[in-house]
């Protein structure tokens, strides 16, 4: 009887987590830890699990971090770098900064683990539009003002890459978190080939060959055009 009650309670707890909209992609999470700078979940996981480091970008201004990211991607695939530039403009057109609100914790984050001095908060959410001109990206304005440039650039890049992977059929942001952690890490400098492969495979779903990536870029371009945004890839 006790076992049945436990099972029932567990099931009911999942039920009570609430039914989220099917249009909402799982969001950009940030960890707010005692006595530390808030940090993007992608970087936190990489530091915690892989022991990657981010000292080279931690204190850079936002513009330089963006340029670092662009330079690294452009080095091994200029078309992907150019796609992300397109997406960055698209992001700025379709973002809303939301005041006076919190975003719900998505299912994607239920199985995460982190130190108990930290609290995971959702800073950004991406939602599939119904009308082509609907806003797509939503940022918690209050939390945004509390994070540093590394997390801001990381978060925006996360959302752009997540747009790509959602278009290509992914259901959550795990691959994006891994990809971003590779490309912006200090370790990238000494492992370019290996990290390039890992990055492309995570984002383009096991494709690192240029011809397959081109096909997938075309698919993303088509989606952008469907949303009323010019996309000039052929």
């Amino acid at each position: 009887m006790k076992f049945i009650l436990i099972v029932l309670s567990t099931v009911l707890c999942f039920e009570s987590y609430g039914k989220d909209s099917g249009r909402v992609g799982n969001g950009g999470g940030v960890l707010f830890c005692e006595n530390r700078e808030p940090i993007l979940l992608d970087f936190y996981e990489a530091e915690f699990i892989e022991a990657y480091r981010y000292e080279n970008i931690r204190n850079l201004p936002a513009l330089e971090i963006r340029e670092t990211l662009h330079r690294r991607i452009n080095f091994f695939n200029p078309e992907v770098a150019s796609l992300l530039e397109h997406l960055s403009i698209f992001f700025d057109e379709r973002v809303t900064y939301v005041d006076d609100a919190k975003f719900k914790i998505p299912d994607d984050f239920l199985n995460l683990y982190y130190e108990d001095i930290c609290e995971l908060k959702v800073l950004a959410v991406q939602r599939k539009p119904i009308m082509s001109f609907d806003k797509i990206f939503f940022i918690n304005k209050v939390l945004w003002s509390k994070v540093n440039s590394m997390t801001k650039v990381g978060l925006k890049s996360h959302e752009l890459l997540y747009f790509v992977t959602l278009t290509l059929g992914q259901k959550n942001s795990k691959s994006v978190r891994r990809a971003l952690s590779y490309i912006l890490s200090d370790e990238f400098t000494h492992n370019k080939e290996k990290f390039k492969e890992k990055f492309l495979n995570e984002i383009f779903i096991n494709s690192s060959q240029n011809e397959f990536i081109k096909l997938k870029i075309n698919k993303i371009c088509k989606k952008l055009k469907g949303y009323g945004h010019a996309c000039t890839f052929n």
Partner: protein
Amino acid sequence: MDMRVLLISFLISLNTFADFREFKFLRESEFSIHSVKCGDSYELLDYKELYQLDSNYDYDLKGETVAEVLSSYFARISEFDYARGLLYRDWISHLEPEIKFINGMNFGRSRDHLNFVEWDGCDIQIFAKVINPNKNTKSVFIDSKIWNKLSVRDKAGFYINYALNLEHIFANRMNHTEYSRYTNALLASNQFSKLKTKDYIPLYRLLRFEQIFYKNIWFVLGFNSTDRTNAFEINSEGDVIIGTFGSGGFFIFEQLKLKSRIDFLNAKGFDLDLNYVQGSYGGVYGSKETFFIRNVRLRETSSCLGRFNLKTLKHFTVKVNVKAGRHYIESITGPILFNGSKVLKIENLNGVWTAIIDRDPRSFSNYDREVGICK
């Protein structure tokens, strides 16, 4: 009482077309209508979640009273969806006897698809619950504590939410109101005037609306727009490019008695019965300019095509040309005899409808019917 009087009274009572308690909605279900409580004020969730999150949208319906606002709503819906404008207006006009107001009600936790946002200092609450309409009970329960604090626009929005979900949840068997809430807010917004009918079709597919009565014709809306046999497309001028004929027989529309009608410029008054025909407008069976309607019958009102009286024909095929949104009959084919001879086709030659005789003696069939002459 005289039986004739009773019968006539009964027949007259059937004249209002939408006592929705007569509908056997296909599944037992229910839906909730939500408000957002911030401090002591309440707002309809449908509006708050769209207008507060997306600066593209702002409420812009006019009206000082609920009736005035609803009137504006119906006018808007009718602009791009005449049948639903009629239907929803009628459903809502019959709603009041269904409602039970309760002063303070706990409707429990919502099982709907709710927004990803939790506004600071606010709670989302159910203020109305709707169950399947049933002759013996009320079907709408409203917490009057919340209802009395809603604005005119939110009360009007409640009625539209109700009508949309009567179709979306009960008739179309969906299990959340995310898309119907969005539709409610979209229709009441400043974006309405910028959208054309074709812009609503993807939304209709999300709502699982099965048919649309557009330009006097019932069309089927395919849920999968890559399925060409059920696709429905309109160009930017509002002309149908592809569409499969529907019958208007989906049960919620039956009582509207709206029949498809195509007016042919070269066959005035020629009245096809488009229920249960085969064929589609453009697309699979033809092109943008020419399509076929198969298995056609005529309505009794008119059966003359030029001098030919086709009322004896049970099933035939019409080849239609479309130019600048106007329809012309190119030819009629089918099991047709004229003066005992098998007819290959009846077509319009220099403005005169002419029977082209089929000389092949093997082409006769048991289904052939002799056509008469219209005087």
